[in-house]
């Protein structure tokens, strides 16, 4: 058996995901303790740019399975193509980012490699020659440490949790082909519908401004949108509590919490949100939390770094103006 650490990288429309670079960093860290080479394997079509970027990411080797067969994502197809390359490497560990694709693909790869998988990990461990990880469970209300009893050890790595490496180095790059044709793909993506342009994806935004029932009416969400916009283009996303999603004010894709999205931005601003335990589950790992609520006893203040006890209808417009002024200055 080799002691390679494999990273399954993700490119969408040929563009490498930042979370994949973070995963390469995590793999480097693991390699510095466990030894071995970091080998990145990725599947898709038109991967030259992604490969070039990965080449200087700190990886030792990059294997690109670049084929028209893999132009569109297929869980079974990508799994098969990747496993064809990964299995002969007999790696000690296989890592992928915990993205929409990682969540769909990594468990399937784990099943094919007949091994375990620690999902959504925030730290990796090497102890007495065994590999393991720490991961949030119960929606972040607790952390679990798991150690692997089978090889390879597999994990999906939580995005925004490992720093991207320095970006020097030159990996050896090779290309490969899948052993099968397009007829053998089963589930296949036929269309990708982008959300309205100019919007940052909720889970990738540096700043999230969320609104809850305290806004009283769906139209008042424009106060939340204006504050988000005040931070400048492409920086802040709008989120929502379940109460307002269930009321039909906001689409489900904006829901933050245990049954919505888990976000970990640098700044999270909760406006008129009480801070129910299921909401906290989705945002409590944000680096800096601001809460605006008229009830001084609202549980959201327990996790807030900064809280204003006040009326959103007074505080939000003033805050938007002040942020605009500060951004301009």
């Amino acid at each position, binding site marked *: 058996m080799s002691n390679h650490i494999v990273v399954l990288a993700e490119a969408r429309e040929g563009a490498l995901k930042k979370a994949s670079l973070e995963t390469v960093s995590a793999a480097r860290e693991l390699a510095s303790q466990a030894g071995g080479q970091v080998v990145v394997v990725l599947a898709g079509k038109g991967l030259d740019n992604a490969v070039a970027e990965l080449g200087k990411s700190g990886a030792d080797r990059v294997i690109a399975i670049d084929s028209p067969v893999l132009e569109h994502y297929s869980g079974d197809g990508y799994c098969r193509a990747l496993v064809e390359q990964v299995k002969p490497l007999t790696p000690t560990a296989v890592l992928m980012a915990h993205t929409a694709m990682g969540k769909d693909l990594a468990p399937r790869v784990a099943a094919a490699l007949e091994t375990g998988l620690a999902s959504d990990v925030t730290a990796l461990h090497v102890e007495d020659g065994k590999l393991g990880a720490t991961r949030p469970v119960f929606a972040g209300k607790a952390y679990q440490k798991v150690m692997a009893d*089978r090889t390879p050890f597999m994990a999906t790595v939580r995005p925004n949790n490992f720093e991207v490496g320095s970006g020097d180095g030159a990996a050896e790059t090779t290309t490969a082909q899948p052993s099968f044709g397009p007829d053998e793909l089963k589930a296949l993506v036929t269309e990708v519908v982008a959300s309205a342009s100019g919007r940052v994806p909720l889970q990738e935004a540096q700043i999230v401004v969320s609104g809850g029932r305290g806004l009283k009416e769906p139209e008042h969400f424009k106060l939340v949108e204006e504050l988000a916009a005040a931070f400048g283009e492409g920086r802040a996303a709008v989120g929502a509590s379940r109460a307002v999603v269930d009321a039909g004010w906001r689409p489900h894709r904006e829901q933050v919490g245990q049954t919505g999205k888990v976000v970990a931005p640098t700044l999270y601003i909760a406006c008129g949100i009480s801070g129910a335990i299921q909401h906290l589950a989705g945002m409590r790992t944000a680096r800096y939390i601001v809460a605006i609520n008229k009830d001084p006893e609202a549980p959201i203040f327990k996790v807030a770094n900064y809280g204003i006890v006040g009326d959103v209808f007074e*505080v939000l417009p003033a805050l938007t103006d002040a942020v605009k002024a500060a951004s301009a200055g």
Partner: protein
Amino acid sequence: MDIIVCVKRVPATDTQVKVAPDGTSLDPAGVEFVLNPYDEFAVEEALKTREAKGGTVTAITLGPAEAQKELRTCLAMGADKAILIKTGDRVHDGYSTAEILVAQIKQLPHDLVFCGRQAVDGDNSQAAPRIAALLGWPCVTDVTELALEGDAYVAHRDIEGGREVVRCPLPAVISTNKGLNEPRYASLKGIMAAKKKPLEEVEAADVAPATAVVSLSLPPARPEGRIVEGGADAVAALVDAIKNEAKVL
């Protein structure tokens, strides 16, 4: 169509987590257990599919004897049959759970499998793609919209910054996300009927987990925040804090 729906008994989402004396698991004292919220969407979708296409719905779980309660909930919603695969002493992970569920599924007629997006205890989100791989079937995860077109599903799933439309031929494994449907409540009649429906108990296939939990701990408390009364001064001070402490301006 013979439809299998995989369900799990989990702590309710408002549970305050306490670590048990073993240091690796949840202290169950005072905890309310429920059907995993995402599995309600899976049961609903299975029932809707049966209503449209005919066939049977079988709910299966790998869990403790108490999980009979959650299986009865599925039967009361309208499932035809339920199977409790007894966990025994092992603490299963994503690997062994899928192996054991598939060993059971293979003993049943099965044309379609529904799972939830994730079980809200371990938050693994692994079972559906693993079950699909072991059955040699395709899979779509986190589905928010699903329609049968001929012999294939057209499924929608959220991805970063948008939505994917996936064409997936049957047989398949589908994992259900919030938004897919509105789970029905069990009617009084359904609850009465559930008492007479078959609920079988079987031993789990002998598969050991691939990972061991060595510790469970609570997250570090967040530092005490500054809470101030509203007003224009508060806003100016907050913007300073956003600039100097959060460092995003």
